[in-house]
């Protein structure tokens, strides 16, 4: 005797969430002021300096305290267009053969300590990010390889000069870590000051940080987006365990979590909270990979690697795993839904993506016999994080067993997992992932290149590099598409350099009184909270 069907309820809530995107401007218009937003964060940031850190645990509590030059549209974060934050009007088009970008800044912006924000602050910030002095780490300087110089011809103009035209420049600029620091702070306190101190120009001002527990921010009354932010402040509560985060939403100890919950938790919350809960969902710009170790026999043999990918029933996996894990969409190398991504017809042509799993598994067994390793035991490296690594790992082991492969899984805590994946390579196959912030497929697929710094398969394949070079120079989208198919075929099928298992799927169930926040395809994006508000009538 169930009073309502949870699936229908979920469908309705999702429909509502998607509909909201369309009427974003309307909902923003009647935004209410006031209230403190409490949210949970799964990790604790090692420092407060976004330029040096790489985790979302830095973004969630501290991004609301800073402004950036450009960003994804906070009212439509699913679109791949960028909007200005500190720059004026629209994001500028490049000039001088697509090698010069000129940004005009909004006037009258102030840092939280009252210092006016000028073009010199932006230049000092980007010099720190792109050309850090000896001994100062900058996590994303490689993103800006195309930049020749950054200058300020006057107080409100910033000019980026590129060495060569590059479509990767604007996405790099929109990376949500590029917080604008005050030149004064860098000059007076040095480049390490921001590790422990905050002085930004964002919608919220730093109040306190209790290590291991919480970060608190309060409304910046002089924020340059007029009328914003709506909230009086926020509290970011650290809760490392998934169950605690789910229970926090359940018991209203927090209103939202920005990374993502497993689907089962969503269903439970919907059942328990009914219309007090809203669910937003999105494809996630993260794919979970199975990376074979090409330097270990018999995984130097492409036939064995192909057998690994052929054994996996992705379509069925998607159906069931999407009920228990934060993965869902079957996709190739490119973020699903992007114009450059393979269509379903194109996908089913790739090894391991076919619809006839029996046929694929038969082929896999034959390949293993041909390679002379029909009774193979795989030493499999996994990461000690449940969602989605261990859940998908348990499933993968089961899939491989079905073509007669035995699997010995070693689950390692994160540090040993990485030490193994990146350096010692004491495994046959390892779980691996490709997680990016701004959706930018041509840059994102470089993970499969054997020369890439984050390709841990120890492979060698000059042919793939050649296809990628052509892809980089391709002018039209049509040409890019066709080259991308060649690239995908080579990387995932013929050479099976790495296997893409499933793409992540982001699910954010939150208290319905949280309004204005919209889900982005990445947990790194759209976290300034300037347009978020609380509907007091629903609290």
């Amino acid at each position, binding site marked *: 005797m169930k009073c309502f069907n949870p699936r229908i309820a979920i469908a309705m809530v999702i429909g509502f969430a998607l509909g909201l995107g369309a009427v974003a401007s309307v909902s923003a218009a009647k935004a209410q002021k006031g209230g403190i937003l409490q949210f949970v964060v799964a990790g604790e940031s090692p*420092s407060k300096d976004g330029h040096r850190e790489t*985790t979302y645990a830095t973004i969630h509590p501290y991004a609301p305290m800073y402004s950036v030059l450009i960003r994804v549209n906070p009212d439509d974060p699913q679109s791949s267009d960028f909007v200005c934050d500190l720059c004026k009007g629209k994001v500028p088009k490049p000039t001088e053969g697509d090698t010069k970008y000129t940004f005009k800044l909004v006037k009258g912006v102030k840092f939280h300590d009252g210092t006016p924000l000028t073009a010199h602050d932006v230049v000092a910030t980007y010099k720190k990010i792109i050309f850090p002095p000896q001994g100062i780490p900058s996590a994303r300087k490689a993103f800006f390889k195309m930049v020749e110089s950054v200058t300020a011809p006057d107080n409100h103009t910033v000019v980026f000069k590129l060495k060569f035209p590059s479509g990767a420049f604007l996405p790099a600029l929109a990376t949500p870590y590029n917080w604008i620091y005050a030149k004064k702070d860098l000059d007076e306190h040095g480049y390490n000051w921001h590790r422990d101190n905050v002085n930004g120009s964002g919608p919220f001002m730093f109040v306190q940080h209790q290590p291991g527990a919480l970060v608190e921010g309060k409304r910046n009354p002089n924020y340059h987006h007029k009328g914003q932010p709506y909230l009086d402040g926020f509290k970011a509560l650290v*809760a490392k365990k998934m169950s*605690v985060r789910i229970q926090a939403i359940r018991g209203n100890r*927090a209103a939202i979590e920005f990374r993502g919950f497993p689907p089962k938790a969503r269903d439970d919350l919907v059942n328990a909270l009914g219309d007090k809960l809203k669910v937003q969902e999105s494809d996630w710009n993260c794919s979970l990979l199975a990376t074979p170790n090409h330097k270990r026999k018999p995984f130097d043999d492409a036939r064995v690697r192909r057998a690994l990918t052929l054994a996996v029933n992705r379509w069925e996996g998607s159906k069931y795993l999407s009920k228990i894990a934060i993965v869902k969409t079957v996709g190739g190398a490119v973020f699903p839904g992007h114009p450059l991504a393979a269509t379903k017809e194109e996908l089913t042509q790739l090894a391991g993506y076919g619809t006839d799993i029996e046929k694929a598994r038969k082929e896999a067994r034959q390949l293993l016999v041909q390679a002379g390793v029909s009774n193979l035991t795989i030493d499999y490296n996994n990461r000690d994080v449940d969602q989605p690594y261990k859940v998908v790992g348990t499933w993968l082991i089961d899939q491989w067993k079905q073509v007669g492969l035995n699997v010995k899984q070693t689950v390692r805590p994160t*540090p040993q997992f990485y030490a193994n994946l990146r*350096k010692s390579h004491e495994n046959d196959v390892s779980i691996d992932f490709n997680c990016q912030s701004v959706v930018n497929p041509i840059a994102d697929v470089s993970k499969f290149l054997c020369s890439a710094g*984050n390709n841990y398969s120890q492979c060698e394949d000059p042919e793939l590099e050649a296809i990628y070079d052509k892809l980089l120079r391709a002018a039209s989208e049509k040409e890019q598409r066709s080259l991308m198919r060649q690239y995908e075929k080579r990387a995932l099928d013929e050479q099976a350099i790495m296997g893409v298992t499933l793409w992540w799927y982001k699910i954010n169930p939150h208290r319905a009184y949280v309004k204005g926040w919209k889900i982005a395809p990445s947990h790194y994006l759209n976290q300034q909270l300037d347009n978020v508000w609380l509907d007091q009538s629903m609290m």
Partner: protein
Amino acid sequence: MYAYIVKRVLLMIPTLFGAAVLVFFLLRLLPGDVCEVRLAGTGLYADPRDIALCREELGLDDPLATQFVDFVGGYLTGDLGKSMWTGQPIEYEIGLRFKLSLQLAIMATLVAVAFAIPLGIISAVKQDTWIDYAVRTFSIAGIAIPSFWLGIMIILGLLIVTQKLFGAGWMPPINYVSPFEDPLGNLAQLIWPAVATGYRYSAVATRMTRSAMLEVLREDYVRTARAKGLVEKLIINRHALKNALLPVVTIIAIEFAFLIGGLVVTEQVFNLNGLGKLFVDAVGNQDFALTQQLVMLVVLIFVLTNLVIDILYAWLDPRIRYA
């Protein structure tokens, strides 16, 4: 007596030094380090030069001997070093969590003592009756039930009960507030883990109270008292309990010392920002500097507690001093 105390204090030094050696070298056997976790932990490309830089900054490339001298030398200079993960001084990181752990340890002790003393006495006095069996079963169960699972069950129970009663699930708060600022909010968070750990703790103490009481009840002076015709209640209160108390106090003190640093799992279940969680996080982040200081802190508390107990015994029983 002084000679004994001096001897016992001096004996602590090799123990602490041995512990320092053990923990230092055990940690260094681990593959991977804090820089890997920090820079490559998100799966994005990490520049090996940045990782090298991070290692250099933290002194991870120094010879082990140098690192060890830094670590142990820190106790002489009073510089415990900085957390490799946050860069904050270790005394600061530990101090923040110490309050919560101490408060929880005190609360759990109160819960334990409130159960253990009466139950242990009843059980001993009514030895081999159904009351005794019931108490013994209850206390052995307390040792058998994992406290973290009991914690999970408490959370489940709270959710179900509050949902039934009020129509909305209630959860304990997930961030710590000082008992002086918001006593109710503080209690709402800490009472549950205090019960979960207090039960186990009371079980240990109940067993000790029972057996100590049994032993004392058989002693001559109690028999004499009985023979004198003293009322049973008076005998228990006046004579037996006082003498049985020493081993009970001992076990309570040892468990208390354990609780301050050893609530590794219960703190996970309830999201408590205490020393146990700090320890698990430090191990997870390969934060050697913080891990080794935390271990040394826990060892020190343990060793000091034992010292106090030994001195107490020596003071009460002069034979020990000359043994």
